């Protein structure tokens, strides 16, 4: 169970990327976080495992207060948080298996890491995950020989081999073609169900979010402006998320007030709305 309370981040440049974001993610939910560029999606996800240090608020993973941890405590906590990156962030010159097993680094000694000597259980689990993500037989290939889609599968295997309590994905599909993007989203949702782990995906493709997520979080200018089931995401709520429009008094009385807007214009306008925000997002 991940719970953030009034989480805020102000960068040293003075840009306020997040303000007072309170979210609770539980069970085996697939949660998609959407919003225009610069809305703070990446900042939020990175604050959870403190790749970015939050400035205010609290983050709890089960019973651990992550913001209070020292270096050792943080490393132990990160073992429980799997993360999938937009640019995969794999070690390019190492093999697929070495990269997957790096998900177990938190549990082995430095000497064992140097000799790539991982416990048999870890190796077995890594093989199973390579089967699951469809890379069986590829364990000795170097990562720089793989395609983007294959790399992201390695990234997912590395995150899942950690046996995390939550899986974070920071724009996992942005570097992939639409077909591969759907495969990756399917993989992530399957993992949530099979492994009984919640998945938080920050994503800018709204159609993918609607198709695969159980629940949607909408960020606009660092603030949480939408939190609800994917089926509740209406054109009005997209207007709120992407253009910062005030929610109408009663959406039901005027359902077509935004009928001209499609996803594309949402994104375009979203970029405009986000253009004065910090560039840290991508």
């Amino acid at each position, binding site marked *: 169970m991940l719970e953030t309370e009034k989480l805020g981040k102000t960068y040293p440049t003075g840009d306020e990327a997040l303000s007072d974001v309170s979210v609770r993610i539980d069970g085996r939910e697939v949660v998609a976080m959407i919003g225009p560029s610069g809305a703070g999606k990446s900042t939020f996800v990175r604050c959870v*495992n403190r790749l970015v240090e939050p400035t205010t608020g609290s983050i709890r993973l089960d019973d651990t207060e992550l913001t209070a941890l020292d270096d050792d405590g943080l490393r132990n906590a990160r073992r429980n948080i799997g993360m999938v990156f937009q640019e995969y962030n794999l070690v390019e010159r190492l093999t697929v298996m070495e990269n997957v097993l*790096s998900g177990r*680094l938190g549990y082995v000694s430095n000497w064992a890491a140097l000799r790539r000597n991982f416990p048999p259980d870890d190796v077995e689990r890594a093989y199973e995950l390579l089967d699951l993500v469809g890379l069986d037989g590829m364990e000795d290939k170097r990562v720089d020989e793989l395609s983007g889609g294959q790399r992201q599968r390695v990234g997912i295997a590395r995150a899942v081999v950690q046996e995390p309590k939550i899986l974070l994905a920071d724009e996992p599909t942005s570097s992939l073609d639409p077909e591969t993007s759907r495969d990756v989203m399917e993989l992530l949702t399957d993992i949530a169900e099979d492994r009984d782990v919640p998945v938080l995906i920050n994503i800018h493709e709204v159609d993918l979010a609607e198709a695969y997520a159980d629940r949607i979080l909408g960020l606009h200018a660092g603030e949480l402006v939408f939190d609800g089931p994917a089926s509740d995401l209406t054109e009005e709520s997209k207007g709120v998320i992407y253009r910062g429009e005030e929610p109408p008094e009663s959406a039901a009385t005027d359902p077509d007030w935004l009928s001209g807007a499609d996803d594309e214009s949402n994104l375009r306008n979203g970029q405009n709305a986000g253009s004065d925000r910090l560039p840290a997002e991508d």
Partner: protein
Amino acid sequence: MAGAAREWSRFDARERLFRIGSVVVAAAVVVASWEWLDISLQYVATAPTHLSDLFGRMVPPDWGYLPNAVGPLAETVQIAVVGTIGAVLMAAPVAYISAENTTPNRTTYALGKLIVTVSRSVHTIVWALLFVVMFGPGALAGTVATAVRSIGFLAKLLGEEIEEIDFGQMEGVRATGASPAQLLIYGIVPQIKPALVGLSVYRWDINVRAATILGFVGAGGIGVQLFEAINSFAWQTVSALLVAILGVVLVSEGVSAYARRKVR
């Protein structure tokens, strides 16, 4: 538009004056240096005669001497090998603290830069003079001199390599909960490995060439024989030794080029 001709010039008067002045100053420095050196061109005129005279005394090379040179030549290569390995081991931590993105704090950064500068600003032969006094004549002094000179070279270039690594790859490893040492093993070393191997072999190649003259100051290697041969005007021995050294240097360059091509 009125038809007035528009003037344009790349530099204004002040800039032009400054540029002409710079050329005058540069020319003055060259002329003054020449004057101070008091170089006599008299020897240039007689150089061809001396050269053909020397050449005549060098030919044919004394091939019969070469079996005596095998041991010292091997020692020369060994000085380079041991000196380079020692240098790599000592340069790795120096590189780590002299790279801006891995150094623990400003003090360690300054210390790293200091070690690099001191090591690099003194030539191998000068280090060898120093270590011959410390350890006495022989290969040990030459080996230590080679290592000490190479630390700066390797640490500087490896440090720059560390500064160029892809931060994302490190971030991916860090996010799994890896320790700082594991971050180094998994996130940094694989990224700089080709450079590490390439630079080490390249430095070894340089050290083989440097080690051929270490004997001039008594620090071991083939230079001892070469120096003796020159001092006793045994020119046919000198030419045989030069050919042998050339052969060793060519082989080491070949090995170095091959190794650097192989690693990626």
